[in-house]
């Protein structure tokens, strides 16, 4: 056997796959990865520091920019941490609206993930379809919040505006449409031999290592471990809704894709249930004048299940009108910095960005 020479390759920092600006230093022999070192720091915008100079409400315009595909979980997690500090009650209706927004966010994020996952495997039509369908979800956000990507809608005390007239009907129609589209997606992606061949047995996270490595979200559930904040520590009104947390054995890209495929259906079901059960009433427990709003001294930790897994916010107040410290810890940090280094050795170079996409690596969220 001819020993091939070890070469060093740099993947990134320009968007490896479509997940954002970071760089992976790969040592390869032939087209097999021998070792991988992740380098981040290309996207650092000092969000956490900037928030310390803004008042409690101002902060949420930065929070949503932590990660483009899923701004809403950031808003919600921060809002819940601040509410805990301030002992602020959230009206029941606002909780339902928040859950609907969260699940819509999950849907649009999955649709973007379809595009990324399929696209990095060379299946470009899928991306065009799912991004096109994502726009229907963004239309719903536009009607509700006034913004398509960055909603800045969930804030401490509830949500910013009540639902517009006829909005829920439009949501239900869109849900029906997306449900019907599942067939097409399956045809194009999940039942596609090309995709299956590339996904099965690739990028395996061993079940016995997953928790130790700090894997969360669909990648963790893809190893067969049932873990979801919505079930484990229910927040808002998730405990009043009927849904399952899908798990799949294998720990490879295929397993993660299957988990997401099922979660997509579950989200549609959650939205339908929430719309049906939503009570009338207040949507916002108004905070005082935002310029003078003082949150009592203390610290709080809140976590939610974002699309890519558990995300937590640590918020500390020293009793002034600005946060003393806000720290976010999301899925991308472990997945993108450490798990990648462990999973990549032994894989084909062509699969690197395929694996990144399946892990939900979002560099802007790594560098808050």
């Amino acid at each position, binding site marked *: 056997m001819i020993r091939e020479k070890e070469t060093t390759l740099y993947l990134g920092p320009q968007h490896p796959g479509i997940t954002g600006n970071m760089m992976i230093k790969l040592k390869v022999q032939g087209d097999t990865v021998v070792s991988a070192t992740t380098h981040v720091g290309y996207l650092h915008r000092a969000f956490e520091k900037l928030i310390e100079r803004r008042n409690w409400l101002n902060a949420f315009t930065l929070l949503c920019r932590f990660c483009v595909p899923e701004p809403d979980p950031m808003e919600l997690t921060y809002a819940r941490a601040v509410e805990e500090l301030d002992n602020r009650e959230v009206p029941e209706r606002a909780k339902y609206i928040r859950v609907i927004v969260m699940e819509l966010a999950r849907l649009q994020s999955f649709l973007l993930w379809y595009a990324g996952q399929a696209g990095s495997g060379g*299946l470009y039509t899928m991306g065009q379809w799912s991004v*096109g369908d994502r726009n229907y979800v963004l239309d719903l956000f536009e009607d509700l919040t006034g913004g398509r990507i960055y909603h800045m809608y969930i804030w401490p005390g509830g949500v*910013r505006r009540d639902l517009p007239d006829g909005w829920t009907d439009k949501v239900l129609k869109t849900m029906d449409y997306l449900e019907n589209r599942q067939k097409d997606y399956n045809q*194009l992606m999940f*039942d596609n031999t090309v995709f299956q061949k590339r996904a099965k047995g690739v990028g395996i996270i061993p079940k016995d290592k997953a928790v130790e490595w700090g894997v969360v979200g669909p990648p963790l559930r893809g190893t067969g471990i049932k873990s979801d904040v919505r079930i484990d520590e229910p927040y808002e009104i998730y405990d009043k809704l009927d849904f399952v947390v899908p798990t799949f054995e294998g720990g490879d890209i295929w397993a993660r894709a299957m988990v997401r495929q099922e979660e997509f259906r579950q989200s549609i079901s959650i939205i339908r249930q929430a719309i049906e059960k939503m009570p009338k009433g207040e949507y916002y427990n108004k905070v*005082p004048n935002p310029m003078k709003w003082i949150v009592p001294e203390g610290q709080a930790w809140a976590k939610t299940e974002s699309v890519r897994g558990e995300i937590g916010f640590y918020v500390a107040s020293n009793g002034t009108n600005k946060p003393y410290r806000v720290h976010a810890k999301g899925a991308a940090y472990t997945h993108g910095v450490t798990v990648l280094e462990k999973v990549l050795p032994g894989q084909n170079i062509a699969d690197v960005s395929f694996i990144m996409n399946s892990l939900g690596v979002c560099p802007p969220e790594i560098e808050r």
Partner: protein
Amino acid sequence: MSFIDLKGLLQPLGALKQIGKKPHTIRFPYEKKDASDNYRGLHYNEINDCIGCGNCSTICPNAAIDMIDLLEVEGNAGDSGLRPRIDNGRCCWCALCVDVCPTGSLNLTKDYIYVTDDPNSFLWMPGVDNKEEGKDLISYTSDTTTSLSMYDRVPMRELEGKERVKSFAEVVLGYTEDEARAEAERCISCGLCTEACPEHMHIPEYINAIARGEDEDAVKIIYDNNPLPEMCGKVCTRRCEDVCALQVRGDAVAIRWLKRYATETAPTVEAIKEVVNPVIEEPNGLTVGIIGAGPAGLTAGYYLALKGYDVTIYEAQAHAGGMVMYGIPKYRFPLDSIDKQIEYMESIGVKINYNTRVGKDISFDDIYKNFDAVFIGIGLQKPWNIGIKNEDVPGVIPAIEYLKIINSGGSYDVGKKVAVIGGGNVAIDGARVSARFGAEVTILYRRRVKDMPADWEEIEGAEDEGVHIIPQAIPTRIIKNEKGRVKGIEYVMAKMLTQEGGGRPRPVAIEGSETIYECDTVIGAIGQQADFTWLPEKYKESVLIERGKIQVNNDRQTGDPKIFAGGDAVKFGNADAISAIADGFSAMKGIDKLLLKKK
């Protein structure tokens, strides 16, 4: 199982069935994408509704909003004349500016396309640069429920109307600590109030201190340019609240009550001294004589004393405070409140000679000779005549004389029924005092209730106490009985005639509408004038008096460089205490400037 899953390979070809279907995408610009009714696009500002408070600029997390002086808009009371300019290169369309806009003038529109190769043109003024197209495209707005501004005032606790008329106990009970904090929190610190206050008090600063829970700081800030805050906290005419940014769509911040709350945290003279901790400069050997211990004289005296001047005030009455002491009923401003303020001033070194009427007990010449500078703050002491038949009969009394008798501890029998003529604060005071003596009181006012110059809270208070107001009633004559006393008053009803050129509507008598109101006392409250009989003729050449008011420059200096004047009796006078305080403060600066060379 075959090596190649043929079905799986052919599956994606199913996508071919989509060929020929209508695409999901929109072919811009042939097809338009309309934004939703809630869309957060480019800004639009209703320039005429905007008051330039700058709240949008304060909240903006990206510092994308500057307040720019717009030449088309003239600044006046309640409008800074500034308008927001957006840097669209910085804006993140979070619309917080819309949600904190107290007037609701700032909105976002459905307009989202703006293409330019000139980075400087990202800066533009909404409502000016997109005047034509912006208005029809308004989408994201805020109303009083969705706005983040806090429009509802924390209500002030008061005595019940029935309870009040039994005594002269103070009607307003004051804010508790929690109430004051909550009220102070509403303030958006725009500073329009500071501009409107004749004395330009540091209003946002002391309200912020109260909101932060630093009451001592608040008191210190207040005493910086107002030595009579307890008085202002209770009876100020509060022009500040008229221009408060929140009053456009809701209730103004209760600035007066917050000041009152702050002063209540220093309830004794010792407490005031400890909190304010005034720095008194070394005596500089210069002397200032002040005529009249009203708000103007006291203010000038206090700050001059702090600057090391030897200040002597001459007061004709037995008590300091001027019109505030003798003109304002004690249920609004209790005696111990005045006493405390005067005592504090005297402890600083202000000397007050009571019962010393200039022109009688001491001549003006003496004062002029003995002092390095003289300040005149005599106020308006002589009531105008009502100008109707029989007004000299017993039972007809000018309101200020009536109030003076009552406030000095005397008594005056108003009988069972009282008619008050006028619509100002003095008229209301006269009416409410009479109500406290058990009389049935009716106010006759020539215009409508909404035209009344009196404070709305005073009008409401009077009505709560059972005072009856007859608007559009012009008194024509007083009817006397066989003993020569008042028996009643005759008045005619008036209709309001709109003035050409937009002046305020003029009342015109309706013929044949004469009505007689039987009463025992008629109280006239139609204004006062200054009395200058004590001023020797030789000074009147330099101390110019026009239309009954002393003419002064901005330093409150008269034609005679040594003589300064302030308060109601000078041309700046708005006939309220805060204007008098402002005059006293300005005169202090003027006197200091004059005497600087002598120091």
